[in-house]
């Protein structure tokens, strides 16, 4: 099961079995955002507290496969207490790790993903790199990050309004 060991690294299974930052935050002041993977029914719910440009608290709920839920857990641990700018850099870096070229369809030159990865410490998140070998599971891994991105965008829009 060598391919499987790449996909289901021990640290991923650890986050799946003992997810970090599970729970809820009062809304408001926290911002609630959810995302679904319509193909397999994965659900990620994120409670996001952003103050003065810093992600002060994160809680997660939802259900889904080990990859989606482990990715959610790792994401919450990685961005909690971090400046929003750092969180956005992590989102870009994580998508680069998943080999997602955001501009590929627009006919642009293939973007250099290493630029997005440079200077960003992925830590535990690197364990998710094995997902790239299983293309249909990439959506499971990126769901939490898309939800985070949406949450950060929405809180930014709210604070401007």
């Amino acid at each position, binding site marked *: *099961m060598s*391919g*499987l060991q790449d*996909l*289901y690294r021990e640290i991923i*299974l650890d986050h799946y*079995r003992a997810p970090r930052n599970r729970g809820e935050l009062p809304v408001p002041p926290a911002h609630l955002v959810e995302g679904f993977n319509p*193909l*397999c*029914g*994965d*659900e990620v719910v994120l409670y996001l507290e952003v103050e003065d440009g810093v992600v002060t608290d994160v809680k997660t709920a939802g*259900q*889904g*496969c*080990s*990859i989606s839920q482990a990715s959610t857990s790792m994401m919450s641990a990685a961005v909690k207490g971090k400046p929003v700018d750092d969180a956005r850099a992590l989102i870009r870096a994580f998508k680069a790790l998943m080999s997602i070229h955001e501009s590929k369809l627009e006919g642009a030159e293939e973007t250099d993903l290493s630029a997005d990865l440079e200077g960003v410490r992925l830590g535990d998140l690197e364990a998710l790199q094995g997902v790239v070998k*299983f293309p249909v*599971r990439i959506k*499971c891994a990126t769901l939490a990050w898309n939800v985070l991105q949406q949450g950060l965008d929405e809180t930014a829009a709210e604070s401007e309004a």
Partner: protein
Amino acid sequence: MSATTSTLDVARIQADFPILARTVNGKRLVYLDSASSAQKPEAVLAAMDRIYRESYANVHRGVYTIAEEATAAFEAARTKVARFIGATDSREIVFTRNATEAINLVAYSWARANLREGDVIVLSHLEHHANVVPWHILRQERGVEIRWIPITADQRLDLDGLDDLLDGAKLLAITAMSNVTGTIVDVAGLAARARAAGAHVLVDGCQAVPQMPVDVHAWDADFVAFSSHKLLGPAGIGALWARAELLEAMPPFMGGGEMIRDVTTEGFLPNDIPWKFEAGTPAIAEAVGMGAAVDYLQAIGMDTVRAHERALTQYALDALADRFGDRLTVYGPAGADDRGGVISFLFDEIHAHDVSQVVDEEGVCVRAGHHCAKPLMRQLGVPATTRASFGVYNDRADADALVEALAKAEAFFAI
């Protein structure tokens, strides 16, 4: 083939399906996803290849020899498909892209011409999205009311309140077999009650038509939708069977070539049925392939197919219960008598998607997800299940391979 139900010689059947000779991850391919799409026998591949190599031309247009041959093959396929489901008039078979398009054809043509605001459509909680969303769209547009037949704890239809649900209904749109739980629906019984209430009857035959003998007149249906790709035929073609008098009265669905008798700058006259509903160049080779697929199944005999599905499903249900007991929840009716060759299940602690991934490592192909039946999944209270489904080419060794692969998945994710 004798007239009585005979036992299927699965080894001989397997030899007819070239894809079954390949391996996955070094393991024998164990294909258990026929409810999603079935594999194709050599006879289907050869028929499609032959039409392209020897007789390919557009249909119903040219007068030259190969155009005549292509047209004859295309229309012969229509007749085969009609006979396969007990239709007596091949004009009652409209070729569509798939079953989804067949149901949409009824929703866009018949329903928009016949249903008004407040009219009632009755569906069930077993339905596939293909038999749900077209009616949601109609509700948004026309303000029709949708009522739902509930299900029991073992995912059969709960018919206690059926007469109230059917009261004033214009259409009952119902699956003949659930694609998630395999539940076989008593279509004839439901249709009789729907008719008594004055409703028309549409049947989603996607799962039933490939797995059991189907007679649209015995069902007393008005519309039956089914696809080719679950029927051992190619994807890209399906069929709507409808009573000729209904098709005659229905307005065209899509406009274009083939579906017209005459076109002027002022308007058009539609073609006769069924071509009135077949705008544009159809999927010619696919129709021929679908005809070859029903030939193949008819040579086996649908009673034999059903007996095979039933025996194999019971074997698999027993094997799963023996090995995993309460740790594995199996959905649907308890025995194989009331279910087709479809088994949905869930381990308490392992997500369906992860199970599917691990068993793929063993060459076992099963579906994980909501199976395009989210209303049913909500009733089950789960986001996803893993589903194994059987075709004529599956045998006990495949069911055993599933059980062994699931045991590996359980061990892999053991806490």
